[in-house]
């Protein structure tokens, strides 16, 4: 784990879980697998606190444990999983676009709590939805369960590995740590629950409601003491599936930008058809025949089969190679080259970064080097049509920032510098890694700056919160206009300005964090696609 990643992880843990969890989490990330006593020793915290923090981290799938020899349990922190916390808003928003408010709330509850049983999720989401609805209306559990089942069917949420069932009369003493098994078949199977009920509001309106609900509430309390029917079956968010969805979105929008709307729709159809059949890190999708694609096109598009074939040939001939032709049966078998698409996306990101950082001339040299792979100094000047002095200057600037590297090709076996070729080249993989490291650093800087800004104006923020609370309570009890105005004037005009600018800055920094995370996603997917899985 690089220093930048560790710093970012510790900042994220501190913001979301507090100082104690942050200390233990960052210690585990830095030192790798450790048993409980060693963690307590090294961090100099009490055993109690360490246990609590580890429970929280395990609950949120950020730390896993393994039973080693001699009964020692070792804990390991998953650094990459901690970095995903940056992407939570994107997951929730995607769930909203696909499954509307119910899906959004289900995913949000699962992310807030790490793991939950289905009944608990449904209950909480129904309660939350009921509060936003009008008076008198309540959300039925059945609707929420339906959305939950749909999310599970499309693999957006999955079951956590199951703990082994312990029988009451086991002769041997229970092992120090349960071995959780992940059952591949049951991962998306929803248990057969008969969830009947309606969402409850937190506040009770009027005595009539109280009278009606009292016997019901007593019954519910009795029910909650028994274990729920799906006890032990926990659900978590399937992050890989969301990443697959983001990748598909990126490819479709790239095709739409490069060609036109219809071709992007065709690619979207192809990707949708291969969602379940292709694993998430396959280099290309399963071959799809042109007839199948024609049948699965969305209902709104009524293009003729011939035009579809023309589009497919155009896509396959494109130099970017998003779509490839793998055979001629069934009217032409077409695949989507996922790894190549990710590489093109990463390269486009690199080009754009060079352009924004160094100028369009540097970008021209960069693109030239990408195309021609290796070029000498003189050749660069000639091909880019840029005067020698400027070309040299730009190349050295990019070289010092590690976007471009030198490749030595010796003419003689003694590698004499006067008789060696020095060629400039761009290595996309190493540049992508360097940029990813830089992105982590920038997000860490952004978070630090945001915390600094809020700390500076802490007193002012507290004052404004108090004034708002007073205003709210006075409005509830019914106060005159004059009194409300007086209270509002407690915050002077310059203070109000200060608050406004603080709010603007914090919003800007938060939005930048979200957008840097988009770049992080593209670069990470590209790097992951090049790593060979053992």
């Amino acid at each position, binding site marked *: 784990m690089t220093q930048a990643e560790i710093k970012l992880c510790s900042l994220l843990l501190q913001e979301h879980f507090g100082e104690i969890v942050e200390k233990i989490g960052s210690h585990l990330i830095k030192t790798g697998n450790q048993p409980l006593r060693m963690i307590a020793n090294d961090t100099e915290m009490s055993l109690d606190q360490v246990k609590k923090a580890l429970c929280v981290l395990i609950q949120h799938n950020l730390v896993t444990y393994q039973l080693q020899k001699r009964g020692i349990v070792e804990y390991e922190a998953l650094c990459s999983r901690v970095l995903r916390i940056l992407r939570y808003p994107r997951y929730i928003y995607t769930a909203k676009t696909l499954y509307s408010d119910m899906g959004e709330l289900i995913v949000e509850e699962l992310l807030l709590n790490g793991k939950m049983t289905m009944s608990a999720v449904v209950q909480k989401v129904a309660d939350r939805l009921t509060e936003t609805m009008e008076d008198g209306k309540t959300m039925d559990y059945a609707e929420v369960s339906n959305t939950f089942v749909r999310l599970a069917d499309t693999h957006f949420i999955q079951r956590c590995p199951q703990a082994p069932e312990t029988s009451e009369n086991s002769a041997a003493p229970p092992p120090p740590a349960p071995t959780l098994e992940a059952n591949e078949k049951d991962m998306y199977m929803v248990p057969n629950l008969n969830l009947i009920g309606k969402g409850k509001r937190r506040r009770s309106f009027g005595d009539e409601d109280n009278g009606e609900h009292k016997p019901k509430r007593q019954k519910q309390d009795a029910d909650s003491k028994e274990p729920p029917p799906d006890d032990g079956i926990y659900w978590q968010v399937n992050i890989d599936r969301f990443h697959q969805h983001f990748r598909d979105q990126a490819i479709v929008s790239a095709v739409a930008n490069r060609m036109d709307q219809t071709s992007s729709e065709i690619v979207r159809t192809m990707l949708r058809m291969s969602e379940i059949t292709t694993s998430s890190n396959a280099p290309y999708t399963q071959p799809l025949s042109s007839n199948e694609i024609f049948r699965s096109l969305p209902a709104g598009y009524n293009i003729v089969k011939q035009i579809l074939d023309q589009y497919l040939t155009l896509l396959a001939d494109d130099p970017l190679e998003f779509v490839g032709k793998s055979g001629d049966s069934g009217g032409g078998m077409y695949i989507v080259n996922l790894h190549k698409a990710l590489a093109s996306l990463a390269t486009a990101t690199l080009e754009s970064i060079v352009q924004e950082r160094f100028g369009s001339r540097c970008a021209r040299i960069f693109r030239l080097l990408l195309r021609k792979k290796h070029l000498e100094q003189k050749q660069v000047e000639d091909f880019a049509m840029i005067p020698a002095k400027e070309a040299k200057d730009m190349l050295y600037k990019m070289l010092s920032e590690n976007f471009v590297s030198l490749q030595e090709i010796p003419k003689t076996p003694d590698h004499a*510098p006067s008789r060696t070729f020095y060629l400039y080249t761009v290595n996309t993989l190493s540049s992508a890694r360097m940029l990813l490291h830089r992105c982590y650093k920038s997000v860490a800087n952004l978070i630090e700056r945001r915390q600094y800004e809020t700390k500076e104006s802490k007193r002012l923020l507290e004052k404004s919160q108090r004034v708002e609370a007073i205003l709210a309570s006075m409005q509830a009890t019914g106060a005159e206009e004059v009194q409300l105005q007086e209270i509002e004037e407690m915050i002077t005009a310059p203070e109000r300005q200060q608050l406004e600018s603080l709010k603007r800055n914090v919003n800007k920094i938060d939005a930048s964090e979200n957008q840097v995370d988009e770049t992080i996603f593209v670069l990470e997917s590209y790097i992951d696609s090049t790593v060979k899985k053992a």
Partner: protein
Amino acid sequence: MAGSGKGRGRAAFTFNIEAIGFAKGETLPEAVFKPTPLFPPTGFKPVPLKMGEDEDYMLALKQEFRGSMKKMPYFIANKDENQAIEKYSKKYLQMRKESMEWIPDWRRLPREMKPRKKTKKVEKTKKAKVDTTKSNVDVLKKIENMLRSITCDRSWKRKAMEKKSLMRKRRKKKTKRVKKKQQMNKKNMMKRNMKRKMTTLLHILKMEMILVLVVTTTWMKQPISYLY
């Protein structure tokens, strides 16, 4: 022969400088002797952020998520050092947090995670505070008992032995005592203190004087001036 390079004493590169683009005899750029500055000047202004409904919604989601995480029982905040002035709202916030305590599913966690109940100390059942109505008879009985315990030799010895064994136990469980002391009833502490003090003569005489005063005032319901 002995001469090196182009001219005597002149530095020369081991390769043809034209290969990397510098013309012959041209002034080379300065060598850098310090690390890159902390905030290097950027050549161009950054591109403005993406604006739009989606981005605004995601921004709101992010801030809401952060806020709700802070209220969850998973957020373990550092115990603040004793503030000079305790906030009134703190008491109610603590109450709300305590009502939302989270208990993990112990079947999924290693056994060492579960906090073990301390079985050594038997929890003392808190005696219900009985309202002592101040009746003279009760007070007299109490005083008589106290006087008897002070003057009787055997009970004094018994108390000394008890004290010794108590001290032994106390040394063994010193650390636990330190914690328990804070939680113990103040009345218990006072009682023990009182018992300990009864072993020296001066203190006994003092207590006797006070007791006599108390008896006479409660009996006669007026202070006796000649006793002062």
